[in-house]
C-alpha cells in the first residue's frame, strides 16, 4: 500500500515533468489553433491527442541520413537542430483513432511555407492545409480546389516524381501550378508534402509495419 502510494506520487511528478518538457522546446511546426484546425481537416473527428517525436529518439543520425536520402536533399530543416521535436496530432472519432495531422516548414519564394496534411490510418492523404505562405498570388495555393488535387495521394505517388528537380510522371506530375509566377512556392509545397509523407512513414507507419 505504502509502496503503491510512493509509486503514484513519483509517477505523477514524472509525468508532470515529461509532459511539460516538449512545450518548452522549439517545435518544428505547430497548428496555430488546433481546436479549430483539427475539425476542419478532419470534419468527423471528436478529439485529438498531441505527441512529440524527434529523430534522435527514433534512430538518431542514421535515421536522419535515411530521411535525407529519401528526400533527395541534405539539411532537412533549415535553422532547426537535429533534436527539434515534430508535433504529431493523432485524431479520434470517439475512442477510435481515424488519422493523423502533421506539418513541416518549407522554404518558399518570399518566406516560410507551413505545409500541414491529414492522413488516414493507411497513410493516404485526405487533404492539406497551408498555414502560412507569403506572396501576392500565394492565395491560389490555399484554395480548396488546389488542395482537392492531393486527395488520395500516397508516398508511392512520389516514386515517379522528383519535386526537387520538378521532373517525373504520374499523379503528382499532372498537378498544375495555379500560380506560375510563384514557381519556387509550388515546388516548395510539393517538397513539403513529400517531406511530410516521408517523416510520417518513418515516425509512424514503418514502426507499425515493423520495418523501416
Amino acid at each position, binding site marked *: 500500500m*505504502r509502496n503503491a*502510494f*510512493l509509486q503514484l*506520487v513519483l509517477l505523477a*511528478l514524472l509525468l*508532470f*515533468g515529461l509532459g*511539460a518538457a516538449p*512545450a*518548452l522546446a522549439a517545435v518544428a511546426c505547430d497548428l*496555430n*489553433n488546433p481546436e*479549430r*484546425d483539427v475539425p*476542419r481537416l478532419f470534419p468527423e473527428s471528436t478529439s485529438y491527442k498531441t505527441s512529440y517525436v524527434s529523430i534522435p529518439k527514433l534512430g538518431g543520425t542514421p535515421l536522419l541520413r535515411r530521411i535525407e536520402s529519401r528526400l533527395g536533399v541534405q539539411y532537412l530543416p*533549415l*535553422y*532547426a537542430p537535429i533534436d527539434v521535436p515534430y508535433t504529431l496530432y493523432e485524431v479520434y472519432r470517439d475512442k477510435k483513432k481515424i488519422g493523423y495531422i502533421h506539418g513541416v*516548414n*518549407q*522554404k*518558399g*519564394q*518570399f*518566406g*516560410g*511555407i507551413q505545409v500541414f496534411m491529414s492522413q488516414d490510418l493507411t497513410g493516404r492523404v485526405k487533404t492539406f492545409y*497551408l*498555414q*502560412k*505562405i*507569403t*506572396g*501576392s498570388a*500565394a*492565395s491560389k495555393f*490555399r484554395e480548396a480546389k488546389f488542395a482537392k488535387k492531393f486527395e488520395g495521394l500516397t508516398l508511392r505517388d512520389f516514386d515517379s516524381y522528383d519535386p526537387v528537380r520538378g521532373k517525373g510522371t504520374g499523379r503528382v506530375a499532372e498537378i498544375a501550378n495555379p500560380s506560375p509566377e510563384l514557381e519556387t512556392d509550388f515546388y516548395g509545397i510539393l517538397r513539403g508534402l513529400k517531406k511530410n509523407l516521408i517523416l510520417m512513414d518513418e515516425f509512424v507507419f514503418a514502426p507499425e509495419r515493423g520495418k523501416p
Partner: protein
Amino acid sequence: MITPFQVAYKNLLRKKVRSLLTLVGILLSTWVLVSLFGFNRGYEAALNRDIDNMGYQLMVMAKGCPYEAATLMLQGGKGLRYMDQSMVDEITRQPGVDRVTPILMQAFFDPNKGDSGGIAGFYGVDAGSYPAMKPFLRFRKGGWFHDNAANEVVMGYEAAELEQREVGDMTMVPEKNVPLKVVGILERTGSQDDGTIFVPLKTLQRISQTNQITTIGIKVKKDADMEKLENTLYQLKDVQVVSFSQVKQTVMKLIATARVMVLSIAIVAVLIAMVGVVNTVLMSVLERKQEIGILKTMGAMPGDIFRLVWTETLILCSLGGVAGIGFALVFARVTDLLARSVLPYAPSGGLVAIDLRLSLLTLAIIVSVGLLSGLYPAWKAGRIRPLESIRGE
C-alpha cells in the same frame, strides 16, 4: 553508541506514511516559497536585461497612453501615433543628449497567414544611427543595410527561422507586395530583436507612403541630469517621453498585485505545512508517552527529551526543505512557463532565478519556522511525568 539524531530518525521511520505526508507538505511549501523568491529576482533581472538591450534610455513618441506605448515598444505592435521627423533635430540640440535614432514601426495585413490572415510587423531604423545604439548585436551572416533607402532587410534569428530565410533570399512586405532582399541575419539575443524584421527607415517610409516616424530613441550622456532632460523633453509639442526607469516601475507595479497574492499563498502554504509538523510530532509524542516516561525514570532530563523531539522536527524540515528546493530547481522552467501564461508582460529570458544564496535563505526560513512550530510538542514531551505516564498505560 546510538546518537540522539539516530533515535529521532528511527522514530520518524516508525510511522512512514505520516512522516512522508508531512515531508510532502513541507516540500510543496518550500517549492512555492523558493520559486516566488526566484521569480522576484529573475523577473526584475530579465526586465533590466530587456531594457539594456533597447540600447537607449529614453524614448519620445507622439502623445497617447504611455503605458500602452511602452508595452508596445517592448513587445512590438501597431497602433502607435506618428510625429514629424523634424523632432529628431530638435531633440539632438538638447544638452545631455548623446545620440538619437528615429524609428518607424509599421504593421501590414497578411491574408495568407493562419486561417483568416494575420499581422506582419516591420521596424524601420536609420542605417546610420541605429546600429551604433546597439553595438552588441552580432550577425550570424551578412551585415546591416547598404544605405537608408535600399530595398533590404535584416532579420532577427527567430524571424529568419519562421520565414526560412537566408542571406540573399527575398522577402515580401504583405499588403504592399514590395520585395526586399535579406542582407543580414542576427545571432540569437534572447530579446525582442530575435523576432524583428528591420528595414531601412526611408524604405519603410516609402512603402508606407509617409515621411513621419513613430518613435525616437535617445541615448543620454553619462554625466547628464536625466530628470532635467526628461523635463525639457516634456516641454516639446505633442510628444510624450518614456524613460525606461518609468517603464520598469510601471511593469513592476503591474505585477506587484500578483506577487502579493502569490506571497500570501506561499505564507498560507508554509503555515499549513507547519501545522502538519506540529500534528505529526505531537501525535508521535502522545503515542510514545510511556517510552518517554521510561527514559525519564532511567535518568533522562526534560532538556534531553526536548532536544530529542526537536531533532525530529529539524530532520523533517531539513529534508522537506532540501527536497522542495530541488524540485524548484528541476521544475524552474515549468514555473517560468506558468508565470508567462498569466503575466500581462513577460520579459525575454529566464523569469525564475534560483541560486545557492536564495536556496540557503529559503532553507533557513523553513527550518527556523519549523523549529518554532516544534517548540510546543518538544516542551510537552519534556514535561511528561514518568510515573503518571507509565501508570496511565
